[in-house]
């Protein structure tokens, strides 16, 4: 490894959180292109199967993570447990917050069609969603947004890495099916 890669390695060793590439470049007094190249070299050095660590880009920066095949050993040593799986209701609420943030509780309930107080509280408890100020609407409801922990747990560099919501639109056939059923009902009711 060259000198710059080794200095980056040292920085990432000492940093408590993911460090953005620009910050790394500033600390190394190097330009971003060089740092990007050196990070590539570092990633190569820490490629799968070589060390107990991997270099990862997550939550807006670079950081070391435990290699997957070493995770169980680390968990045994630290007593850390795997995060508990999220229920469908929690995932659904999370997707609404992630795509529409910042959102109020009423916004979430409106999309889901059910009160979402409990699921939002559950997401807050898990550190995936946090309060982010209040809306400038009557009643000044609390606004909710996703956290850095969410990016880590879902392996995202940033929120922008989420695929656009449009990709998840129901397919034309599905929409037609629902429409036909609803309109059929309406017509019969009118008759």
């Amino acid at each position: 490894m060259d000198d710059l890669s080794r200095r980056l390695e040292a920085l990432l060793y000492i940093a408590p959180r993911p460090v953005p590439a620009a910050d790394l470049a500033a600390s190394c007094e190097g330009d971003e292109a060089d740092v990007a190249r050196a990070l590539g070299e570092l990633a190569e050095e820490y490629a799968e199967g070589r060390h107990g660590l991997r270099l990862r880009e997550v939550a807006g920066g670079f950081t070391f993570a435990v290699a997957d095949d070493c995770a169980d050993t680390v968990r045994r040593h630290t007593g850390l447990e795997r995060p508990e799986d999220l229920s469908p209701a929690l995932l659904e609420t999370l997707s609404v917050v992630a795509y529409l943030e910042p959102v109020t509780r009423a916004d979430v309930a409106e999309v889901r069609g059910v009160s979402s107080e409990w699921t939002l509280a559950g997401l807050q408890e898990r550190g995936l969603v946090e309060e982010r100020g209040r809306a400038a609407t009557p009643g000044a409801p609390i606004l909710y947004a996703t956290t850095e922990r969410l990016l880590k747990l879902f392996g995202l560099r940033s929120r922008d890495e989420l695929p656009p919501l449009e990709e998840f639109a129901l397919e034309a056939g599905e929409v037609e099916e629902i429409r036909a059923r609803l309109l059929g009902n309406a017509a019969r009711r009118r008759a």
Partner: protein
Amino acid sequence: MRAEASAVTAPAVELDLDLDVFDGPFDLLVTLILRDEIDIWEVRVSRIIAEYVLRLADSGEFDLDATSQFVVLVAALLEMKSRLLLEDEVEDELEDLDPDEAARQLLERLVRYGQFRNAAAMLRGRWADHAAALYRSAPIPPALLRRPDPEALLPQRALVDALAPLLREPPVPDTSHLADLAVSVVRELRRLRRLLDDGGRFTFGAVAPKGRLERAVTFFALLELHASGEARLRQTRHFGEIEVTRCLQPAVAG
């Protein structure tokens, strides 16, 4: 993703119903109502809820997802039913409830909701791939904490001095001032019999202990001796000394 989307229209709630108008699984009932093959007028939603609660109580298990689904569906049924009630009574305000318009709005909502539901399926996939990852983490340096680190303010020695007296075993409390109230008539009887055997006579005042309770027990023992005919009691005046003498030929009990 297709499976997730279709789940929007057919969630699984396992509940068998036996209603006046319908006998079968809850899912089927919902489907039939949606297809207008069963009139929701005829369905007593409270019965469905009661059945579900009973089933929950019987099974002893609580599946949050299934129950949420159930609540969502029942809420939808109730809304449909209450809208129908309203339609009848508020004939003039029917504009708001134009079936076509209502259907269109509902379609819009379902389509929008379906998107997020599909997105949730994507999140589930990412979670499965990434949630177990362990990233480098370290606590925030104490210098950056808004609240000063208590350890920095308090010398270690002070903490030890404060804790030491708490950790020391406290002395056993002195309970000598508490009287031992364990007194037994049987033991007193034995003692009095021995006194009678030894001297043949004694006075109550001479043998009775100081404490009131013990004194009472001794008196009970005395009465017992009298009743069994082992001793004769004599008191010449009220509150006077009681003389106890042994009967040489104890009366036969009974």
